[in-house]
């Protein structure tokens, strides 16, 4: 338990992806079965154990210590799991000489019934040290919140051999904790686990961004073009009564879209884009957001923002794996198959007609719907392969929007950038003429070169007007300040931000040392972009 606890402690404070991968891979390499497998399951969210409510935790601890002192402690720390892990009274003399292993903890929690969960938890907490207590509480309260996605954990596992992460994703839903067969294969001790379960995930084919010079070498007649829809890439897989709706990285998101999942009643695997609205009236990105990041969805939301799938490809039909066929043939099979499906939940991604690249350029720049973010190019003869091969598929995105904003706050970065002010909050003007003020509209921490970073850092240090911890407030008014050209992919309405807008994928595209702050953009310019 202590090694798992230390891993969690390190992960939560390690900002860089590579640092996290290293910590995870080292852990999986050095810890034996079945502990490492349960750790993996805990991180990917595949571990099911008796859940404990925060109120029960609080009751347990205040039975054991003065509630007033607990109150002081909790006020200071602010996090219940952490507070309880720290204040839990233990008698050093009574501590067992054996700290339970992660698998022992999991076994005890899985065996606990609803009525004795409380007792089991208390005994586990009695037997562990501070870090281990914290890890146990995180396990039972659900959600580790350590800034590690299931995808990243799978990547770390893949790095053991190494193999491509898509191989892990493909197997994943046929495996169960503690994944001993998976680790044995990755360590070369046994063969690759069989694809045992039904309706498994097929690793997704992705596209390279197209650059202008690519087109000189490409023949328009070799490619089909489709709109690039900015929804969620999904894979609907159904086999022998098992229905799954996978995200691009192979996580099952069926629970969040029961309305769509209910209609996956065929024997096939489809690749497509999840959108909201209906095939005849596609909703906007803001509509889509109503369905994202929800654990459960009310019938009202489902009715108001129904989910449907715009299909790109057919990977499997009945017993036949179609992935090796050329796109032209798969498409023909898809067109025929889609006619058999519920037309309110499935439609076909239409082609964009073109003869010359210039025609397509025109369509790309003027898409017919706000949720289109460009066009996709697919070679007529391309098989469906996992990953991002260069050549068969290209994505050609619409040019980003840009806005001239004023730098307002700068925050120190992490790791390599810990001595640089590298995260920038910027704002645009609002309010009546003569009484303009800046409202923050976004935050960006990339898009500039190392040299530019040094220049901005110096500017921030020389023009600081206030400091709050790692954040500096920078002089920004009608007379002085630094104008940043910010590029972004789109805007959402936001009730969380004072400006009422939230940018998608903002980055610094140019430093406008030359531009007077008074000439930066106004909030109305952004509001006009809201769909």
């Amino acid at each position, binding site marked *: 338990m202590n090694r798992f606890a230390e891993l969690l402690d390190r992960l939560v404070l390690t900002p860089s992806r590579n640092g996290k991968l290293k910590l995870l891979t080292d852990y999986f390499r050095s810890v034996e079965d079945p502990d490492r497998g349960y750790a993996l399951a805990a991180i990917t969210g595949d571990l099911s154990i008796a859940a404990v409510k925060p109120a029960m935790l609080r009751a347990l601890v205040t039975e054991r*210590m003065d509630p007033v002192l607990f109150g002081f402690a909790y006020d200071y720390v602010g996090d219940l799991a952490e507070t309880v892990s*720290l204040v839990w009274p233990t008698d050093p003399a009574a501590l067992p000489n054996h700290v339970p292993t992660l698998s022992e903890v999991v076994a005890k929690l899985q065996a606990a019934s609803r009525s004795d969960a409380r007792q089991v938890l208390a005994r586990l907490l009695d037997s562990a040290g501070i870090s281990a207590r914290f890890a146990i509480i995180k396990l039972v309260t659900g959600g580790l919140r350590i800034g590690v996605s299931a995808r990243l954990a799978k990547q770390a596992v893949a790095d053991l051999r190494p193999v491509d992460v898509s191989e892990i994703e493909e197997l994943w839903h046929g495996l169960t904790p503690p994944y001993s067969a998976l680790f044995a294969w990755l360590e070369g001790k046994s063969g690759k686990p069989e694809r045992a379960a039904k309706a498994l995930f097929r690793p997704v084919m992705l596209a390279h961004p197209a650059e202008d010079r690519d087109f000189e070498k490409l023949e328009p007649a070799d490619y089909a073009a489709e709109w690039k829809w900015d929804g969620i890439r999904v894979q609907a897989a159904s086999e022998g009564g098992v229905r799954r709706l996978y995200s691009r990285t192979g996580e099952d998101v069926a629970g969040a879209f029961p309305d769509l999942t209910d209609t996956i009643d065929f024997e096939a695997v489809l690749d497509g884009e999840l959108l909201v609205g209906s095939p005849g009236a596609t909703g906007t990105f803001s509509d889509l957001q109503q369905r994202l990041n929800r654990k459960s969805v009310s019938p009202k939301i489902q009715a108001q923002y129904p989910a449907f799938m715009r299909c790109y490809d057919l990977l499997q039909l009945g017993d036949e794996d179609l992935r090796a066929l050329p796109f032209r043939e798969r498409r023909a099979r898809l067109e025929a198959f889609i006619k058999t499906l519920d037309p309110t939940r499935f439609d076909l991604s239409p082609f964009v007609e073109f003869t010359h690249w210039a025609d397509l350029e025109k369509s790309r720049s003027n898409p017919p719907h706000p949720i289109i973010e460009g066009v996709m190019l697919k070679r007529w003869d391309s098989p469906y392969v996992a990953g991002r091969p260069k050549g068969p598929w290209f994505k050609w995105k619409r040019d980003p929007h840009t806005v001239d904003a004023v730098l307002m706050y700068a925050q120190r970065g992490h790791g390599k950038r810990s001595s640089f002010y590298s995260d920038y909050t910027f704002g645009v003007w609002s309010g009546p003429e003569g009484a303009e003020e800046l409202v923050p509209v976004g935050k960006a921490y990339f898009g500039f070169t190392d040299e530019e970073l040094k220049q901005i850092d110096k500017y921030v240090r020389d023009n600081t007007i206030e400091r709050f911890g790692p954040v500096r407030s920078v002089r920004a008014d009608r007379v002085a300040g630094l104008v940043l050209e910010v590029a972004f992919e789109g805007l959402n309405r936001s009730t969380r931000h004072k400006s009422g807008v939230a940018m998608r994928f903002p980055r610094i595209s140019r430093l406008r040392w030359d531009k007077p702050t008074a000439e930066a953009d106004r909030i109305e310019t952004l509001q006009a972009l809201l769909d």
Partner: protein
Amino acid sequence: MTYPYTMRPSELLCSRPQGLYCPPGDFFIDPVSPVDRALITHGHSDHARSGHRSVLATRETLDIMALRYGADFAGSSQAARLGETITLNGVAVSFHPAGHVLGSAQIAVKHNGLTIVASGDYKRQADPTCAAFEVVPCDVFITEATFALPVFRHPPAEDEIAKLLRSVQQFPERSHLVGAYALGKAQRVMRLLRDAGYDKPIYIHGAMAKISEYYQSQGIDLGQLEPATVETGTKADFAGAIVIGPPSTFSDRWARRFPDPVSCFASGWMRIRQRAKQGGVELPLIISDHGDWDELAVTIRETGAREIWVTHGREEALVRWCELEGLTAKPLHLIGYEDEGQ
């Protein structure tokens, strides 16, 4: 409450704007502004200020003050030997090790059969760089309360050093920057690293050179210390190195000379994750020179004091604990003292 003594404790020691004052003895303990006669518990700058007319402190504390402020840090100074009684205007005072930093002492003040111990800052965990805390039985114990919440439970410092060394092994291409208070904590970390078998040079920030040298001169072996300057080499030389500097320097341009640094901070505050996270600390090292909750409790019990005065820190929680223990306790509001590593 009635006292069996001929005087009330507040007649022997009381709080004045300059600090803790003894009216019959006419002296201050750790005054924050210049006074005629100052008794000083230890060399941290919020306790040991310059400009007093006369100073009474341990030899080491006087040396440290001279290093920090120059030889003329006070009109006159007198070294107090540990355990020896010195009489000031009829009040008996004696110095006893506090285990906080090199030279740190508690000051016992005795008059008319009443003993008050002003502990200054103290800890009970073993520290190879200073004398261990000694329990001094007393009637009134003045305790610090920097970490006086039941959430503060310091692990053995050796375990934290082991964590640091594991990380150095795991990330050999990065340098580990350890933030540590220049007096005491830094040298303790160095010594702990040596005790753990780390024998490579430790790179240090210029601000801790003099103090570390002083520790070495007092027989505390810190091994080979090198200035963390680039003049002597290139950035790559610091790959895999341990660099110790005052925490504030890590956000300075100074830190840029190190390759992809892992920022570490040696402090009792690192017990709280959010605290580490806010400070951008990647590897918190829970190493403190102040007692944790359990140490404070055990110390209060061991002194046998019936009355506890609680100062600088989270007085509220410790006063509550004393009340639950049936002890008289009150917060003693002294101004001008800093938290560890703030």
